[in-house]
């Protein structure tokens, strides 16, 4: 299966977001891929507001079965979330559970005026009533496969990869 070029999707996503930007709109990426995408969008859109990041480990709904993953990183929301306009950025939108977790975490920092959702790729199959405002591309992928975003350490360029799902513990 031919995967779309992540760099092109970034451009498309930036173009979709640009008309809706408020002067105080803040991007918040979801660890790890969402942060990469948000950082690139932040540059492409020429934003001067702080770039936020959330790591949703403490809000995940599969903690009971999977436990706490290693490599938890702190969330960074260095702007005042109260009354802010947020665009939440993820790399691959799937069940919507990560987005719920991220929104719960954001609300523990304050009450934003609005949150919009941007995803580089939407593979459908939502399990929660969550709908993105900005999507780079729709993608239909078999359930036993995972779409993963990769980042070239040297150039910062992004690309998509299709992997077989690991037998989760």
């Amino acid at each position, binding site marked *: 299966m031919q995967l779309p070029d992540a760099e092109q999707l970034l451009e498309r996503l930036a173009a979709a977001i640009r008309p809706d930007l408020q002067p105080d709109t803040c991007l918040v990426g979801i660890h790890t891929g969402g942060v990469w995408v948000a950082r690139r969008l932040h540059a492409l859109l020429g934003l001067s507001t702080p770039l936020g990041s959330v790591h949703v480990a403490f809000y995940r709904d599969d903690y009971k079965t999977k*436990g706490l993953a*290693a490599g938890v990183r702190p969330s960074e929301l260095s702007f005042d979330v109260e009354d802010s306009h947020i665009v939440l950025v993820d790399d691959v939108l799937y069940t919507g559970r990560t987005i719920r977790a991220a929104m719960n975490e954001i609300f523990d920092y304050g009450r934003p005026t609005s949150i919009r959702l941007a995803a580089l790729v939407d593979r459908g199959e939502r399990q929660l009533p969550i709908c993105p405002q900005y999507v780079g591309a729709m993608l239909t992928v078999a359930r036993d496969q995972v779409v993963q975003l990769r980042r070239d350490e040297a150039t910062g360029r992004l690309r998509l990869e299709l992997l077989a799902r690991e037998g989760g*513990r």
Partner: protein
Amino acid sequence: MTGNPQLTADGRLRHLLSIEGLPAEILVQILDTARSFVSVTEREVKKVPLLRGRSIFNLFFEPSTRTRTTFEIAAKRLSADVINLNIATSSQTKGETLLDTVANLTAMNADMFVVRHAESGAPHLIARHVGPHIHVVNAGDGRHAHPTQALLDMYTIRHYKGGFDQLRVAIVGDVLHSRVARSEIHALTTLGVPEVRVIGPRTLIPAQVERLGVRVYHDMAQGLRDVDVVMMLRLQNERMDGALLPSAQEYFNHYGLTAAKLALARPDAIVMHPGPMNRGIEIESSVADGAQSVILPQVTFGIAVRMAVMSILAGNQG
């Protein structure tokens, strides 16, 4: 007896009973997770929903308001329900009470026991008798171990020194009776500190402590030379009764940390103490409150480290 009783069959942390025998990766995972919890405690809402609906029992067979409070705050910030039990022990029925109490609380659907006990090994005993879904955290047992204190000390060292593999660390005082010292020694050596020293009079240094991977000094001036971290231990007053020490004054003269002695360490050395401090006995006030002291940050990090331990344990089933 086979295997490490703290780990699940696939090597994840099931109980935290001791630092001994834990791989460095698990210690690092706890420190990394704690870092995220430090940022949680700086937010407007200092709470995460991870342990919602879980019941954590603080079983304190030996009173300690201070330690119990930090565990209680940590558990509440993880949204757990916390039940505090201060269990007075009569010497005759101690053992019975211990396992009976555990059986009763298990029947109340406890998910985790945080145990403080005057006897070394009591948390191991409890861990052997709890059901498979219950986790045990050692909050200090006899002279044996105080793993969460050691972990918060490691967090503090990493915070100020960036890592472990270039450090010289001195632990000063009553090592013989100190569960904190034993856990610190294991944590430091596991995390790769190349030189761990213990400093104290011969009456307060345990037999064959070198086997734990430390160098023993009886002269504090020699022992402090060029160290990066000075970890002071609390001296209990009753040590004077057992003919271990002549007086607090003589102890302070030889093993108390003063500005002059601290000057022998590296200029950027940090000073730590597990608290509560005896000012003027093991540490001079000007040092305890001085620029090199990180004693108060230790307390702050303690809550995040305990949150990390509890959230990692509660997530590791089976």
